[in-house]
């Protein structure tokens, strides 16, 4: 397994997994840089000989309302959350086509791929894009045996919402009829199934 991350946290995770007896490789990657994404795929193939599964998970949160959202913030959110998914999908598909045995791609959508909410201006634009990008790739590469799906979680208790104060946290919980936030492992199980 290749763990790609912009931060060094990925390095620590990789080391931990290798200590536990797993076989992982850390590649520092900025998904907005085409050369780095290409490098991520070629290094994966160099190390393990092939690529079967790509999970395009990376994303950032932004909840600025439109009139207070700078163009820079908009571009950065779209760059990471949408263009990053495109690039990693593009080069994964290129490799999977070469292998000729199909493959599985899972992209990170969100409930904001479907529904808006005050302030999720750039975030929902990117996640809505991920949904239709996923559908388009599905139809385009289905015959080649490449399956492309998106997981669309609600609010999950992760560092992405660590900035929320108690009131905001309760507001987020109230958005979910089950009356609680999701747990990371509840997304994980869906990914394993995919």
């Amino acid at each position, binding site marked *: 397994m290749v763990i790609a991350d912009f931060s060094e946290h990925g390095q620590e995770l990789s080391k931990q997994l290798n200590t536990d007896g797993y076989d992982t490789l850390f590649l520092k990657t900025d998904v907005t840089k085409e050369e780095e994404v290409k490098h991520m795929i070629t290094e994966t193939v160099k190390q393990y000989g092939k690529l079967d599964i790509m999970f395009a998970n990376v994303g950032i949160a932004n909840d600025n309302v439109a009139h207070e959202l700078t163009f820079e913030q908009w571009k950065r959110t779209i760059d990471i959350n949408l263009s990053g998914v495109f690039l990693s999908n593009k080069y994964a598909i290129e490799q999977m086509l070469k292998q000729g045995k199909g493959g599985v791609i899972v992209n990170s959508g969100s409930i904001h791929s479907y529904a808006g909410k005050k302030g999720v201006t750039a975030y929902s634009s990117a996640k809505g894009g991920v949904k239709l990008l996923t559908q388009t790739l599905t139809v385009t590469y289905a015959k080649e045996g490449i399956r492309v799906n998106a997981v669309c979680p609600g609010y999950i208790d992760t560092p992405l919402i660590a900035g929320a104060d108690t009131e905001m946290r309760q507001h987020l919980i109230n958005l979910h009829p089950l009356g609680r936030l999701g747990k990371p492992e*509840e997304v994980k*199980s869906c990914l394993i199934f995919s």
Partner: protein
Amino acid sequence: MRLENKVAIITGAGTGIGKETALLFAREGAKIVITDINEDSGNQAVKDIQSHGGEAIFIRLDVSKEEDWKKVTEKTIHSFGKVDILFNNAGIYIIKPLAEIQLEEWNRLMSINVTGVFLGMKHIMPLMAKQKKGSVINASSIAGLMGAPGHVLYGASKGAVRIMTKDAAIEYAPTGVRVNSIHPGYIDTGMAEYASKVTGSTKDELGKEFPMGRLGTVKDVANMVLFLASDESSYTTGAEFVIDGGATAR
């Protein structure tokens, strides 16, 4: 095992998707209540599960009859003491142009595909709520998501299942009971054979209309139902899951 010690009721479990799901659930450790209107195929499914070392009972069920559902509820509790999973799978399929649909066949199909799902949820979900946990999977179809010629009747029934699922999910979310719908495309069962006969296309030709270029298998569907039945999907309710070879991505 992914369903260890769970009790599952499956409707229409004598054949096709229902039977495959029952066999898979049993392998994953669940005790199965096989229900079907056909006693022979229902009893056969029980034998097949038992011959693989699984535990199952058969209860005859016409899903459109409330008395039958009461019996299923009582016998399930009597035999296994609880119910964790309900797969509302039973359904019938009619392809017919709008103007040729007889009111009698409209009412009959609705009584099975819609009323049957309603009655199942009505009688089983309160029991699950008492247990503070449970998972219901309702069989809709891609016909419940998109239109097609000859599908006014079937599509209306599956559209109803789709939205009933969401309504029940919201109503029961505070109780810990989850309800989701599955939306298969053409799966290689008696229904695909029927569609092939009515449309004059071979099953292969039907499969080629899907982006993945083939019909689905009962296994493709059973694995999805297993995921939704298990605790692996514990934050998922009121949602739609397609098993359609990419058809609805178009």
